[in-house]
């Protein structure tokens, strides 16, 4: 492994003055900041591909506080932090610590005092990272809060789309599924519209309500309307526990009306890529053959996840 010093390029940690102490959502980022973030992530990806190991976070303690089950995001952050030379610790912030009477604020303050500089927080309550920044002095990285935001997912999706389509300005992206309960969709809405793309949301009424007032967003209930001529399609994971009374009569009915197939994808622009934040329910929101097809960028999303998380961790610590 080659030890790499901070590169003196125009992007990333080398440039001082990243103005944000925390990353709670992408809504506070300017277009320039998003671009800088994506450029740095691309740089990280290249460094990793070259087997280089930047130690920009040497001496830094990154704590993973996952109060909600997660495998992909936690592992991705862990690899990203370790790849930058940080010490990674798991923070004991089970959902059960709340029932034991210890508040989130108390837990995080304790972590700060033990020397954790950056807390990567995953929490079932929307807005928990905002409470976290008001409760302790560590940097807070939102790794998904309730149904509110998942900023690193949106950034890795943007990087994946930028690789596939080039500039996103003027592009149209369809997001299909349970938008209302999706933190991935919300952060993507902010980021895609900020970058100049327009977004079509598609799903049953209960899953798409409340979004009509968002700028750059249209809501469709017919999948054919949403897919017609779009540049890219993003499918969301259907929460399997949502059955009757939860927005759709049945998963079978959902699949019939909103499930993505290769035939339906033919309505989109030729070659339009398909994204999915994973894990997929094949046979529900998309077919197995579509997930395995050349349109599918699901694998790239996972790879870009590590690079994007390396980028944001180093930007916050800069």
């Amino acid at each position: 492994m080659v030890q790499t010093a901070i590169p003196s390029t125009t992007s990333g940690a080398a440039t001082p003055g990243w103005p944000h102490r925390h990353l709670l959502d992408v809504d506070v980022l300017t277009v320039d900041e998003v671009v800088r973030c994506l450029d740095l992530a691309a740089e990280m990806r290249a460094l990793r591909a070259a087997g280089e190991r930047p130690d920009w976070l040497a001496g830094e303690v990154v704590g993973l506080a996952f109060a909600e089950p997660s495998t992909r995001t936690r592992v991705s952050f862990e690899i990203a932090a370790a790849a930058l030379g940080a010490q990674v610790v798991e923070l004991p912030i089970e959902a059960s610590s709340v029932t034991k009477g210890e508040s989130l604020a108390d837990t995080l303050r304790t972590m700060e005092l033990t020397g954790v500089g950056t807390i990567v927080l995953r929490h079932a309550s929307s807005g928990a990272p905002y409470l976290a920044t008001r409760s302790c002095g560590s940097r807070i990285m939102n790794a998904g809060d309730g149904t509110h935001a998942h900023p690193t997912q949106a950034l890795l999706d943007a990087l994946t789309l930028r690789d596939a389509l080039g500039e996103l300005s003027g592009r149209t992206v369809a997001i299909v599924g349970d938008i209302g309960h999706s933190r991935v969709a919300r952060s993507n809405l902010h980021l895609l519209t900020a970058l100049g793309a327009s977004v079509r949301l598609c799903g049953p009424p209960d899953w798409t309500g409340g979004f009509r007032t968002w700028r750059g967003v249209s809501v469709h209930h017919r999948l054919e309307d949403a897919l017609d001529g779009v540049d890219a399609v993003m499918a969301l994971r259907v929460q399997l526990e949502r059955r009757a009374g939860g927005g759709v009569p049945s998963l079978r009915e959902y699949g019939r009306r909103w499930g993505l197939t290769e035939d339906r994808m033919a309505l989109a622009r030729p070659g339009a890529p398909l994204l999915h934040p994973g894990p997929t329910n094949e046979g529900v929101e998309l077919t197995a053959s579509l997930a395995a097809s050349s349109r599918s960028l699901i694998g790239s999303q996972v790879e870009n996840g590590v690079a994007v998380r390396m980028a944001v961790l180093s930007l916050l610590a800069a």
Partner: protein
Amino acid sequence: MSRFGSIAAEPVSLLLRGARVVDPAAGTDDVADLAVHGGLVVDAADLPSGAVEVNGAGLLAIPGLCDLHAHLREPGDEASETVASACRAAAHGGYTTVCAMPNTLPPLDEAARVAYVQRLAAEASCRVRVVAAATRGRAGEAQTDVGELAELGIVGVSDDGAAIASPRVARSVMAYLASVGLPLIEHAEEPSLAGGAVMRSGAIATRLGLAAWPSSAEATIVQRDIELALETGARVHFTHLSTAAALAEVRRAKRDGLPVTCDVTPHHLAMTDSWVAGERRFAWDIPLDADLPRLDPERAYHGSTRLNPPLAGRGDALALMAGVADGTVDAIATDHAPHPPERKLVEFDRAAPGIIGLETALSLGLAAVRAGCLSLDALVGAMATRPAKLIGEERSLAVGARADVTVLDPDATWAVEREALASASANTPLLGMELAGVVRLTLAGGRLAYVGGLDGLD
């Protein structure tokens, strides 16, 4: 200097000279002298020598405020508030009567418990009237002994915190209440539509990713109870209505001559769901075409904005205000709901619902008057005269009336801070804001309830 008194003390003799006296009962609004002696409003000529004289120039004298809905938290949650501290907060806010809601621990569902609160209140700074539980344990099943409770002077029954969920139980409670002459005070929230939700549905809840309940959850209970009032002849009072839809039902029922009344809270008039995102402009200052608010990291998802019913949109807030202005809304009631920090400085969806209101209600009302949303007469009518009448009390500044009087400086400002509050709790999103309207003197039955910063009395 400020001082709290007791309703058990001797009445004061006092002459307030040259204040603007607003009395909705008489329909008067004049600069005048106001004399108080022996617990009554008297003719200045009948004051004994030695009565205190106070210069009222620039001050406003109004009938003592009456709150139909306050949580005094005693018994059971004395760390949040006690009867004594709530009554000090009330007197500090200009109230001479507060109605104590029954969702204490244990709930006020039997005579001994009601009498216990009444004993605690005997020497408090203002009068306390008790609302008893509608059902035992507030469980929504067996009705409380309303006849016996009525003998203790309760003003109504309520399972506040929840509606009586079962239409059958609600009907039987109301049918029996009709024989006692007391109202059901209903918290209109259909649990199967609202369960688990922490915000009002709309663009803001969607923006924040918070579970939200639709207006229909309120309107369906209001519709049901209006039908039951028609059928049983019972009075029903809807408390803390929060939506235009529910208010429209009440307006229709009143037009039909049904015994239906309602109150709204100062915060549902002044605040909107965008306060959960960090907005701090009052509803009437938010433009119609306002964009979705940016999340303010210092304020977004703050537990102090978690209320039940949840804050609604600008349109609902302004519709409620119009209801106060046209009289459809009978009262502005605080729903004063003290909570300690450990129940508020937590994740939004885990925060206990409610905010304190006794000490900020009048300032919020005055802000609405200043903004041109309400006349001063309508405000005082909704905060004093009309709620008092609903519970059988009188508010009048005419000679011979019981001296429930609040004197305030409408233009003086105060900073809402922990230290400025007499309440044992400080859970309000107004914390850190500056409000106009400072109470200088509160007299309950001629007794000094509160005095602060008044030349001649401190």
